[in-house]
């Protein structure tokens, strides 16, 4: 590494448009997420924040433009979608849910031996869920479930971590504990991108911010991005879905 000039890129957006049907939810996004950066994505509801993470996670193909991921041997993406999409009535113990984080190593058939079990124990300890191993996931509270999902993320050992509103409806103590894990990932030079609503948390923990309201409004140092005039522009976003919109000329 030769100083600041060679900061590598983890994710590059190349005139990216993502959406549903032909209607854009993220419109003409251009820019780079540096490797090892800690970035918050903020904006009003319907601004395309979740859509952007889906795109990066590969769950949604771009309508236009491209998402480039740095391709290294250790590039692995871990994606935590909004919690509601998990079937909590499934009869599964917490331990098994967390152990699934080892998928990239164990895969379909790989064994889970003493070394793996120790990793699972460590992950459970890191999120404060020791003693919950045999509890069915249906009995967890919202905060405990989020802790379990963070334990699974820990085991995924990914170089890029995408979090979609990880602290929504989570109490202060749990949020603080989980933010410690986010900081730990940052210290380990992993790239973290998180969709958040609490600007106070963003200012306190996230050095970089992308403010988006379908169109990108501002992107860079958090303090500069979260200025009142930018937030006002974001709030004026047209939320209406126009069924007769014309084809985009840009």
């Amino acid at each position, binding site marked *: 590494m030769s100083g600041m000039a060679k900061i590598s890129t983890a994710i590059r957006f190349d005139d990216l448009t993502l959406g549903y049907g032909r209607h854009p939810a993220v419109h003409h996004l251009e820019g780079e997420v540096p490797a090892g950066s800690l970035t918050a994505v903020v904006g009003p509801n319907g601004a395309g924040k979740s859509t952007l993470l889906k795109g990066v*996670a*590969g*769950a949604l193909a771009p309508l236009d433009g491209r998402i480039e991921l740095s391709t290294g041997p250790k590039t692995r*993406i*871990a*994606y935590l*979608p909004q919690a509601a*999409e*998990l*079937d909590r009535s*499934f*009869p*599964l*113990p917490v331990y*098994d*849910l967390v152990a*699934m984080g080892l*998928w*990239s190593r164990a*895969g*379909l*058939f790989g064994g889970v031996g003493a070394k793996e079990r120790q990793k699972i124990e460590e992950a459970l300890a890191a999120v404060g869920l020791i003693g919950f191993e045999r509890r*069915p*996931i*249906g009995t967890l509270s919202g905060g405990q479930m989020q802790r379990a999902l963070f334990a*699974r993320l820990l085991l*995924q050992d990914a170089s890029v971590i995408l979090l979609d509103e990880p602290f929504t409806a989570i109490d202060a103590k749990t949020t603080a504990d989980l933010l410690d894990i986010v900081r730990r990932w940052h210290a380990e030079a992993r790239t973290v991108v998180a969709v958040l609503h609490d600007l106070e948390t963003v200012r306190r923990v996230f050095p970089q911010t992308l403010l988006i309201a379908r169109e990108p409004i501002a992107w860079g140092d958090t303090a500069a991005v979260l200025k009142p005039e930018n937030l006002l522009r974001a709030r004026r976003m047209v939320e209406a879905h126009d069924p007769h919109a014309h084809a985009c000329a840009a």
Partner: protein
Amino acid sequence: MNPYDLLIAPFAEFEFMRRALVGGVAIALAAAPVGVFLMLRRMSLTGDAMAHAILPGAALGYLVAGLSLPAMTFGGILAGSLVAISAGLVARFTALKEDASLAAFYLISLALGVTLVSLKGSNVDLLHVLFGTVLALDDAALILLAAIATVTLVTLALLYRPLVLECVDPIFLRSVSRAGGPTHLVFLGLVVLNLVGGFQALGTLLAVGLMMLPAASSRFWSADVTVMIAMASGIGVASAACGLLLSYHAELPAGPAIILVAGGAYLLSMALGREGGLVWLALPRKHLEA
């Protein structure tokens, strides 16, 4: 009547009872775990729909070759797979959901099947196809049932992780692996295979019974999917054995007797099961300290 006469003698004395027992155990062992996954994927009624979908294939085999095991089995697997795949494709590429498109396809299949059977056969043949002949299983049928049970259990073991993960957290599975889609297809294949097997013994209409009733019962006893699978198999095997004994002693038709016993096990589980059984809910018990 001593216990030997009650429980052992019918099997010891009559070969057709022994064959029925072996066939029933083979079906129960494999179909019940498949049923557990159907239930957990909220596809409990899919088994029923698929069972009807098998009929025209089996009927075609019957038209071509009479009551021939290979022809009817092959036809059944073909028709079942065709309906499963078509329903899946319609759900994926049109606005219709999978349950609605499956309902449409299986109703067409059922009508087609009954029409085909009645083109050539008598009412006896139709009854045979609809309700099976568990007391007349020959060597070929037993080998088929055993083979299906083996293939099913081995495949379920191999696919266990993606099967569970696709139910719990499909988005996570998609983010770490592409196994989800193929797993779903192979699983539907197992459903078809087990229904075709069960169809030999219990007929199209009752084959689903040994698949879903033990599975639904097991949910009342455990909140851990691995335990549920073992329990469902156990309940299924016990239902097959007890149902045959019931039919022997009470002179009832064997297939329905097996399913009735499985149904009794379900009602008993619903009443007494440790996980949400009615008795435990109704019992006035003081809440715990922590």
